């Protein structure tokens, strides 16, 4: 590891020196919602528009070529990061669009009445609703795998839910509600044994741990730039080469066609055929810059760092009266996300009082209503602190003090 995580990388993030209007120093613990950006990424965006910008793959001039090269390089960088081939990388606007692209582009073609779609109860709405709606469109069975009491997946239950009628199994690499790392390799194995495609939602896992699409044997993997130091508005859909032909072009328009006649259209080759319209080159360049930054840090080190912070927070908070901590106690199954409640205080009030102390966390259902309902979580909501590379133990000390403040005020 070349960088020291925590205080040393923090210097690269201008926003982290924010002081709130009440004089409090910002402690940003809302990283599962979106991460902050290092100056390297911010500068890459500005430089793109200062030195490179043109439309891509269309205009045969100096800037057009620079832009096309930058876009292709970004695709290669993303491919390398998850051990894929560059033709397997489709740029989208984010995880949500990626998953919709699968549900419409693959699902509408390959799922029929009576088929089954299997998802976990702990999926984010973006990996839940598109599948549910696909099932409704196709009169397929939408099967939601129940969880253990701590929110983790029981492999034997998955085995029971996946049958020969199952066409899709969808699962997050890491859940955003409780930060649980799911056993994707095992689940993928179950899916493939039944002939189903295996769809991984990597929105939380890709930013926080090494990802190898070959090893997890995912058919589809989705993730978002903004959750891994990259800009908003860019995401990735990985599609395994051997099945890419079964993915029908979904969005149509400029740039993805071969020939357009009045009565029919032929489409370009992958990945172009899946990228309709002017692509977000700025976003791709920003994401590639973020990936280079993460790579230099080392993905193993990031998970380790998050676990260190999680362990420290867990230890400090488990002795605090009225605090309920969610998720498994085995940290090997977790990344840097800590969902909690304070008995008798609604998490929105917790968030507001923490905010008055400078601490940014998220409260609510975290786009994960099914798991909160399933586990009968009070208020159908939690407070959630989530850590990333620039957080340090002292941030957690401020968090704990703020929680004490909340308890005092709502005694």
């Amino acid at each position, binding site marked *: 590891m070349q960088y020291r995580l925590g205080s040393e990388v923090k210097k690269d993030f201008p926003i982290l020196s924010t002081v*709130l*209007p*009440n004089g*409090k120093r910002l402690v940003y613990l809302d990283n599962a919602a979106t991460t902050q950006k290092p100056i390297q990424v911010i500068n890459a965006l500005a430089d793109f528009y200062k030195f490179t910008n043109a439309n891509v793959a269309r205009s045969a001039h100096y800037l057009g070529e620079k832009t096309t090269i930058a876009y292709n390089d970004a695709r290669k960088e993303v491919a390398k990061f998850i051990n894929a081939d560059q033709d397997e990388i489709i740029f989208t606007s984010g995880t949500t669009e990626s998953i919709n692209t699968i549900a419409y582009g693959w699902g509408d073609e390959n799922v029929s009445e009576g088929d089954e779609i299997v998802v976990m109860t702990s999926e984010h709405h973006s990996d839940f609703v598109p599948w549910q709606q696909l099932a409704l469109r196709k009169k397929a069975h939408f099967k939601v795998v129940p969880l253990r009491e701590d929110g983790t997946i029981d492999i034997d239950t998955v085995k029971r839910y996946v049958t020969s009628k199952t066409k899709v199994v969808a699962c997050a690499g890491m859940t955003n509600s409780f930060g649980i790392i799911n056993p994707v390799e095992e689940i993928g194995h179950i899916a493939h044994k039944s002939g189903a495609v295996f769809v991984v939602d990597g929105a939380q896992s890709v930013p926080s741990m090494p990802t190898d699409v070959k090893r997890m044997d995912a058919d589809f993997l989705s993730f978002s730039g903004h959750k891994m130091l990259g800009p908003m508005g860019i995401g990735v859909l990985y599609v395994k080469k051997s099945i890419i032909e079964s993915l029908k072009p979904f969005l149509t328009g400029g740039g993805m066609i071969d020939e357009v006649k009045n009565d029919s259209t032929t489409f370009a080759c992958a990945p172009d055929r899946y990228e309709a319209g002017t692509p977000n080159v700025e976003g791709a360049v920003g994401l590639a810059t973020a990936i280079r930054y993460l790579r230099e840090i080392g993905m193993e080190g990031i998970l380790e760092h998050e676990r260190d912070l999680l362990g420290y927070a867990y230890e400090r908070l488990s002795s605090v009266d009225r605090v309920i901590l969610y998720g498994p106690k085995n940290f090997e199954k977790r990344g840097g996300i800590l969902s909690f409640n304070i008995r008798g*205080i*609604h*998490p*929105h*009030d917790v968030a*507001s*009082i923490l*905010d*008055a102390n400078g601490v940014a966390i998220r*409260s*609510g*259902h975290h786009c994960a209503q099914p798991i909160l309902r399933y586990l009968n979580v009070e*208020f*159908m*909501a939690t407070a959630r602190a989530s850590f990333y590379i620039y957080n340090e133990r002292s941030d957690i000390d401020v968090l704990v003090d703020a929680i004490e403040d909340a308890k005092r*005020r*709502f005694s």
Partner: protein
Amino acid sequence: MRDFSDLYAEIIMDHQKHPRNFGTLPIFDKEVQMTNSSCGDQISLQVKFEDGKIKDIKFKGMGCAISMASASVMTELLKGTDVNEAKRISSEFIEMVTNGKAPVDDLKDAQVFSGVSKYPMRVKCATLAWHAVQKALSD
């Protein structure tokens, strides 16, 4: 300023701890259920009318301090008032919190919620009960 007291004035904390008109009515003319989907706050409101006035009003609900205190303040303020008057007052409240309009005297204690307008994420919490009562009064 982003202090605790911006959002949680003493009156609000008092209503949160001791909600007024909490519960259900034996007989009522109108019942409204409303949810704030973005955060899950829920309210159920019962109203009894008499002679064009709100004779009695009670609420039950689950939610944050802001939404519960706001419901409590609302019931206290509107109980006994003329229906048209109540409509006007609740519009004033919603305007104050949603669009940052200056508080008007009519709102009495409810004026303490004016600070919420600076916290866009909490606006829906503060206005939930008022939208519910508007619905109860409208149709």
